């Protein structure tokens, strides 16, 4: 039961943060959502604690399903890369609360 509740709390927090104005809060929200997604995938293979997914550590019947763990590993790597990119985007560009144009060295007109 602990995994579904955790997923629910993470998702609720993610939605709250994503509805805020600032880019940094949106990034925190998306990171929380990525965690929620990872837990959903993990629960697809590991509903209760089972052994490590290695043939010599646990028998085939007790071993956890390695595939969701591989999924999650891939997803974590992707989420990290995107988070770094979004943090860079939060630094460049204009302020979300004002309509000030960024200093790009060009003069702008419509």
């Amino acid at each position, binding site marked *: 039961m602990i995994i579904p509740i955790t997923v629910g709390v993470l998702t609720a927090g993610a939605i709250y943060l*994503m509805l805020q104005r600032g*880019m940094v809060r*949106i990034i925190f929200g*998306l990171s929380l*959502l*990525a965690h*929620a*997604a990872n837990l*959903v*995938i993990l*629960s*697809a*293979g590991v509903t209760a604690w089972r052994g490590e997914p290695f043939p010599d550590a646990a028998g085939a019947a007790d071993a956890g399903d390695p*595939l*969701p763990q591989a*999924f999650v590993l*891939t*997803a974590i790597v*992707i989420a990290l*890369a*995107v988070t770094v*990119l*979004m943090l860079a*985007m*939060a630094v*460049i*560009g*204009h302020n979300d609360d004002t309509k000030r*144009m*960024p200093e*790009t*060295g*060009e*003069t*702008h*007109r*419509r």
Partner: protein
Amino acid sequence: MMTSALLPFLAVLPIAASAATVLWRNATWQRIWLLAIPVLTGLGALDLLLQHRETPVIAENVGAFVPGVAIPFVSDTLSALMILVTSLTVLMCLVFMTITGESRYRLVTPLVLMLLGGVNGAFLTGDLFNLFVFVEVMLLPSYALIAVTGTWRRLGVGRTFVVVNLLTSTILLIGVGLVYATAETVNLALLVGAGSDPRTMLSSGVVLLALSIKAAIVPLHTWLPRTYPATSASVMALFSALHTKVALYALYRVTSTLYEGQPPWIMVLAVLVGLSLVVGSYSTFGERVMRRALSWQMVAGVGHIMLGLVLFTQFSLGAGIFYMIHHIITMGALILGAGAIEQTYGSGRYERLSGIIRRDRLLTIGYALALMSLIGLPPSSGFFGKVGLVQASAQAGGAWQAVFITLIFVGALGSLVAMQRLWVGVFWGPDMEDYLPDSPETGRGTTVALTDDVRVTPRLLAPMAVLVLTQLAMFVFAGPIMQVTTRAAQGLVDLQPYVQAVTG
């Protein structure tokens, strides 16, 4: 010459080239890679397409694991056709990019090559999780591409693009996880018909929801017309040829395998598809900038393409696939044409442009042909695209027949009038007196009196001309091309060869 062992290389080769162009940043070297890779993947896809006349499906289980456990790469007529058409369009976008000099921006070459690798991978993968991975490989360079080209607006809309697409990718990931939890596999060949189990039906619904956002189906479309026009013309043409089309391809593939064409929410989808047709066409009226108007036409195009899937007969799927390749090529021509105008005169706004019909005759002829193709008037590929969809709707019978045929005509009428506004605003009217030239110091900030020698150069026009000629060829050779799309549709209806090739 293409064998099954070479299938992964259609995805690996662009990604490896991307790495090579990061490490060695010689301008000539980068340009060679940039233009050679789409040519190579296009030739590979053409060869696959010819082979599929005899062998309908070619599959490769990477790493020689047991089929079902291994990572499958599968090519059938549909995926080979998609790679061929996208490679051609991408090549023209990249030629345009080279001419405008955008390809010399820092890291643009490796980013575009990585994008191409992700797209080819998404077309070839036979596994839902790998679909997610390749969609991410496709999106990550796009996040950067949208930020390095275009107007200052890109910095704001880049955020919208990243946030919407990342949220959608997370939903897709959750959906794939739930499919694994309920069906115990994410291999498409093993998932055939799995949608009849109510639990898998629900979990794959999450996958379809995510793909619908990525495909920009009304009412999940609003991100597209707000983000695409803010980037540069060549990047917008790349995105329009690749992003939504990958999502549409995946919708075709997933719906036909998991539900064998009969998802329980086909009614909901039918209503949304009808809405997309009309909302996309009529929203074009609100825009006074060329590429913004075109971005709404992309939403209308999504409605047309999805119509083929909603009706789900072999004929309607074939018509939908024909419309999809027509739409990729025509949209590419229109956006690159708008890009040529913007590059020369410094603006795409209707009120800043006028009288181009007298300045640039060739461009005008090409643009007129492309606009006719968009609306569906002969002589153009769009004519046969719409004829196919109307015929498919007529075969559906019942109330759908009347509703869909009416919607196609009402949508076409809206597009026609909206595109006339573009035509009147940009091509007709008095001669232009000033323009906004590109200057290294001030960007396009200062108005300068227009002299007679400022014209759209033939070089700038060439990529668009190639795409316009391609769609004219699709009009002339509609018969043979429809045979190919019908074969592609057959692969979606009759899944036996697909399953046999993957599971061995």
